[in-house]
């Protein structure tokens, strides 16, 4: 297949875009892709592969425009990255960005991952407190279950374990 742009070289970059069921395909060669700065020809305003992600980022502010501060004015106080810069490059500047942009990130995570809460590994050393809090939550569920089954002896054991963990957390 020949490149759509120059018509000389074979196309090596193949890109399919589907918007509302309408399919658009691009086939261009590497040289043209580089020249265009990875802009895909034929779309209004240009469309870069990298902005795929920022497409997801822009979605949410548009949905609730008028509410809260404008994206240009939201800025990470730690590294100085603004939300609108973040939505263009699709990368955070530092770990504090997550906190400073927090109000706007959940819809993004929902779309990318289908979830907004981490359930995996916790750092061994620095995560001990989080570990304990998670264990307490788990134990409380177990406690409820024991009580509902009227297994009061094991319920008391679980209650003691919860108290011990809570005391250790308070001391820390």
């Amino acid at each position: 297949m020949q490149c759509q742009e120059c018509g000389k070289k074979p196309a090596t970059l193949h890109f399919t875009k589907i918007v509302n069921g309408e399919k658009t395909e691009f086939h261009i060669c590497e040289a043209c892709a580089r020249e265009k700065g990875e802009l895909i020809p034929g779309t209004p305003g240009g469309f870069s592969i990298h902005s795929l992600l920022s497409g997801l980022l822009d979605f949410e502010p548009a949905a609730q425009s008028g509410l809260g501060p404008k994206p240009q004015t939201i800025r990470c106080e730690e590294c100085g990255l603004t939300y609108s810069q973040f939505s263009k490059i699709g990368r955070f500047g530092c770990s504090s960005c997550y906190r400073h942009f927090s109000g706007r990130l959940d819809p993004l995570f929902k779309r990318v991952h289908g979830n907004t809460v981490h359930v995996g590994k916790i750092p061994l050393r620095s995560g001990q407190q989080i570990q304990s809090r998670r264990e307490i939550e788990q134990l409380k569920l177990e406690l409820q279950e024991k009580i509902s089954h009227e297994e009061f002896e094991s319920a008391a054991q679980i209650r003691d374990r919860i108290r011990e963990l809570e005391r250790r957390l308070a001391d820390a």
Partner: protein
Amino acid sequence: MERRRFAQDALSEWMKTNGPDSEIVISSRIRIARNLSRHPFPMLATNQQSREVMEQLTGVARDERLESFGRFDIFILSELNELEKKVLVEKHLISPGLANESRGGALLLNDKESVSIMINEEDHLRIQCLYPGFQIKEAWTVASRIDDTFEGAVDFAFDEKLGYLTSCPTNVGTGIRASVMMHLPALVLTQQINRILSAITQVGLAVRGLYGEGSEAVGNLFQISNQITLGQSEEEIIDNLYGVARQIIEHEKAARERLMAESRVRVEDRVNRSFGILSHASIMDSKEAAQRLSDVRLGIDLGIIQDVPPCVMNELMVMTQPGFLQQVFDEVLNPEQRDIRRAELIRGQLLKSESGGV
């Protein structure tokens, strides 16, 4: 200059042993992304900050904390030449990003080349563990222990709700990318591959070809990896990938059996024809080489070709890449010269393995 070890052998030490299901799964890989808590991510870090991050993280290897995972060499990217970087990329030991764009970039590489740790890539720390064959769970176990070792020495950016914080929102949470590299010639030949690949993308997994993102699969090699990193535990992510890969293995096995039952002579012809061309051709471009090597590899797995060990194919896949080719012949080659040298190299390797020595 003395040649570095990684540049001499196309096949990393870990690739020379056979793993489970290695006639279909070439390798299993885990990558974990981590960042230090009080430094900006590499993209926004000053040169000074990048240097500090590099010092701190390479220090973990210098302190010999990693020694239970092998003997580690520390490579500073700015001290490597272009060809060495290219070879590391072709062997999948570093990313093109670390090779070309990093500031304060470094690589910690163990002697088997089964663990490669990138510093100041997109994230401060990227731990990669590679295993031969289908051993994704084993790779995770080791990667997680290396993660713990680093965490014992430095503070990672971690949020109670969001997990490990990464530069790109697609990695946040577990920061894990689990992937298996599969050789699926029979599914391609029987034209079932597209149906299977599109099913894969619907269960939160991604597929790409070997060498080159998103491009068509070269040599019938497909890399399947998880997309979701937030809201699933590492075990769930790995189990999901494991289950899907297991099904693909069974489909590929069934397709191979059917091919042999229904069109044995055609398969034999294809395999032997490719073997003949590889053994005798004088010019071989990389695309043809990849396809023919895939045919021969299939022939070995089906018992059509018996004198060539399967790892020769893995080795030739890497050796015939442009960077490695130039390293082997120790000269700068234009594409035309490369095709001639590539043909020469393949002939040599196949002849050598046929006469007994590898």
